[in-house]
């Protein structure tokens, strides 16, 4: 999904009524936001964090120093790893790591829903829709987390809802 469209989704999910206009820069189509009172902002996660503050929802950036650093780490992961390479192998490796990370976590920071969950959900959507039932089961923790986020109020919007089967079909595969 183009970055500008993703930011528009984010605006809606944050409850920001007046939509911003975004331009795109360079061949990677990096989004640029022209702010009213100052220089423009460039970059998906930079603008996303700005929007969160605009919506007075700073808690989405984390509450403690630890949480804040973790949120930014996963935002960086999103733009470097998820957006960076998208060969099948890269995605498999990424899902494997994420799956083991989420083993003991509800959200990326642990127990609190943050911007990192939203942007990772948007970024992974195009890959998750393509997973087979068996793969979804293989990356069970990712599936649980993803399903959770897509049902979080106001996040999914027009994106297609990915179906996850509750009972396990391939119990032998583990």
């Amino acid at each position, binding site marked *: 999904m183009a970055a500008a469209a993703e930011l528009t989704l984010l605006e809606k999910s944050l409850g920001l009524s007046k939509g911003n206009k975004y331009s795109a820069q360079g061949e990677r189509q990096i989004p640029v936001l022209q702010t009213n009172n100052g220089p423009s902002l460039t970059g998906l996660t930079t603008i996303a964090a700005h929007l969160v503050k605009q919506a007075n929802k700073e808690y989405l950036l984390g509450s403690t120093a630890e949480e804040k650093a973790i949120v*930014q780490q996963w935002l*960086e*992961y999103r733009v470097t790893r998820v957006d960076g390479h998208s060969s099948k192998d890269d995605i498999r490796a990424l899902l494997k790591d994420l799956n083991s990370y989420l083993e003991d976590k509800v959200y990326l920071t642990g127990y609190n829903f943050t911007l990192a969950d939203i942007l990772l959900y948007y970024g992974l959507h195009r890959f998750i829709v393509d997973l087979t039932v068996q793969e979804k089961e293989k990356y069970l923790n990712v599936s649980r987390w993803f399903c959770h986020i897509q049902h979080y109020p106001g996040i999914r919007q027009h994106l297609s809802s990915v179906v996850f089967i509750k009972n396990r079909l391939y119990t032998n595969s583990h």
Partner: protein
Amino acid sequence: MRLFVSEGAPGSLPVLAAARRAQGRAELLISTVGPEECVVPFLTQPKVPVLQLDNGNYLFSTSAICRYFFLLSGWEQDDLTNQWLEWEATELQPALSAALYYLVVQGKKGEDVLGPVRRALTHIDHSLSRRSCPFLAGETESLADIVLWGALYPLLQDPAYLPEELGALHSWFQTVSSQEPCQRAAETVLKQQGVLALRPYLQKQPQPSSLQGRAVSNEPEEEELATLSEEEIAMAVTAWEKGLGNLPPLRPPQNPVLPVAGERNVLITSALPYVNNVPHLGNIIGCVLSADVFARYSRLRQWNTLYLCGTDEYGTATETKAMEEGLTPQEICDKYHAIHADIYRWFNISFDIFGRTTTPQQTKITQDIFQRLFSRGFVLQDTVEQLRCEQCARFLADRFVEGVCPFCGYEEARGDQCDKCGKLINATELKKPQCKVCRSCPVVKSSQHLFLDLPKLEKRLEEWLENTLPGSDWTPNARFIIRSWLRDGLKPRCITRDLKWGTPVPLEGFEDKVFYVWFDATIGYLSITANYTDQWERWWKNPEQVSLYQFMAKDNVPFHGLVFPCSALGAEDNYTLVSHLIATEYLNYEDGKFSKSRGVGVFGDMAQDTGIPADIWRFYLLYIRPEGQDSAFSWTDMLLKNNSELLNNLGNFINRAGMFVSKFFGGYVPEMVLTSDDQRLLAHVTLELQHYHQLLEKVRIRDALRSILTISRHGNQYIQVNEPWKRIKGSEADRQRAGTVTGLAVNIAALLSVMLQPYMPTVSATIQAQLQLPPPACGILLTNFLCTLPAGHLIGTVSPLFQKLENDQIESLRQRFGGGQAKVSSKPAVGETVTATGPQQIQVLMDEVTKQGNIVRELKAQKADKNQVAAEVAKLLDLKKQLALAEGKPLETPKGLSSLGSPPCLPVCGTSLSSPVEPQFRGLQGQTGGWPDAMVTR
């Protein structure tokens, strides 16, 4: 908390420097682990540095660790810092890891290392100087400074990789480096071994992915839209109103062109192409076309301009070629000189002189310079071991010997290089050497040769460079190359060869020898001028009055920036030396290189057979000019740029502006009553025009082309917003408004035609004929936007300027010229279908959207039936959706429609950078006949 680091891991630098911030806030243990140790349980790949937090979670991102330390010290996050850190992760790191990999793991040097990061370094420099703050995010040092400093330190601590011209970056880097925490971190990590301390770690890392699918970017950086002050607007309006009265008289044409005291005298040369090769697109953009743009621009500025070039005709390669084709060297030169001249004529290169080096003037001037050097003691004599064929009774130049390669055993290795393993060879090292002519075995004999004593001239050269370089427009790569040669120290260079086809050496005992091309090729510029006018010395012995611009590819820099200046300084005859040395990087072909032997790439004589006009070639080559970094020619990109930038943007605007004058105002430019919006547009166009001038004065040819396209985009928007085709049918006030908009638009079109002249001379002339632009306005470009088509001016017949390039046409050209052939076969089928259909589909859809958009616009303009309009709008929206899908934009459609294949457009990366064994030449090699072996191997 616990920090895991590893010996030589570059990420340790910023982390250790930032750790000082957290001192006293938390207890920090530091453990050193091996580079392949997996510290983070959930990550498959090893990663250091890593911070294990007290709650058990891990920070594995270097920036996140630094951020955490800063947060602990009470620092608050801000947008600007976030932006720098995101840029660091997405832009700087990929470039930097490539550069470090080249430098540390592959042992490369110079431009190979600096090339990948130059753009990022320039970005930092510009940001610092634009904000005029000492630090990245404000007045004090902060997180962004530490993270970027830590990333850059391993590279920039070597002054060779901190370009001098980036002054703001320079002082920022020095300031941050001198902070105590940074100094300590640097000592800990690099251990005073410099960048080599990173080797043990980097060697164990996989090759950076930025290197694998390295796509060379052709997109320049975006510029922010400027804000205008009231004064700027007022000045633009005043200049506009003066109109044609502002123009000075046209300079009358001169023949011959000679310098004039008190004027700006610009002497332009482009590297002399070696006569026996047909030039390819890389050669053309590298020298003759780039120089042509500047020459045309210089004339538009009314500077007194002489542009010269010619073929470089002496040397072994010509003799070899002559033997192959059964002709004499002179016949070969005559034949190929004509081929070159034809190609450049077709490309519309505006030489004042296109000469050649095989003339009596060349002999006279070369011998004179030699005699002066000889009598002043700058020439040495020495004995050289060489192969001699007793049968043919002559010493054999490198290319006249063949034999078995001493390295790989290949049987047909040449005397200078093996075609199989690519290694450079000394002819005397060949096993079983054979004379290429008679096939007998040559013997090693010693032969007397002359050497130019460069070490003796080095001091003079350095003094000259010190006076010339500061404030000049030498390109950064040229400065870099010269600096690295001087750093290594100059050595005496052999200037004679045992050949017949060359300038004879005027010295007793050397009657059988000629000057080697690298001594006399650059003297060719002088002799070519001497053949043009007997007053050539007014150009070439007149450094006070003449500015000399020399254009070339970067492999030619040492000849022009070092060897010729040394000869000229030693000759002590007040020669004009290069003031601005303009060197390009390499142009690649599709994802590979131009290769004559493999028939890959487009060569000058073939360009005309493609049916694509010369101006389109010029436009695209200049649009991708390898300025500051390598770039690549791509057929698909050429199609897209032609159809989007030329057809839809520039052509569309100029055509509409002219059509409105013809259709609505009977061909007469209407009265213009400027509103404040119009005045703002005037000022914006003026600003962009001034930007164009600033760029071209610095010979930034590619960037200046963007200004033209920006102005025409402004123009299109202006027409779109003001809708003159509607207002013309409205009230009196509406009609007047339509007149103003049309009048202003057609004047912008006139301005564009002049700005376009250096780039697309034929198109420029066509527009000027269509608009009947008065002659002085065609030949002069001022720094202000003038009203050159006043109310009442009658224009000519307007017709479309550009033709669409079709997919099948481009596809068949791609097949014909071998682009991407090898790549397709080695790639899995999936990737192929995506790349093959993607751009085509998009192009088809884009066209349909444009077409449908026009239908809707017309219906609306005609105030057609609402239902009919609604139906056409629905069609348009549907097409736009399909286009969005094909471009991989969000699927904002009902689910049923999203069956076009998902994921819609995976970026295809990882193209195979396989290395074929045969030698390959990159874009722009060897215009002056190649280096002597000893020079190449340095």
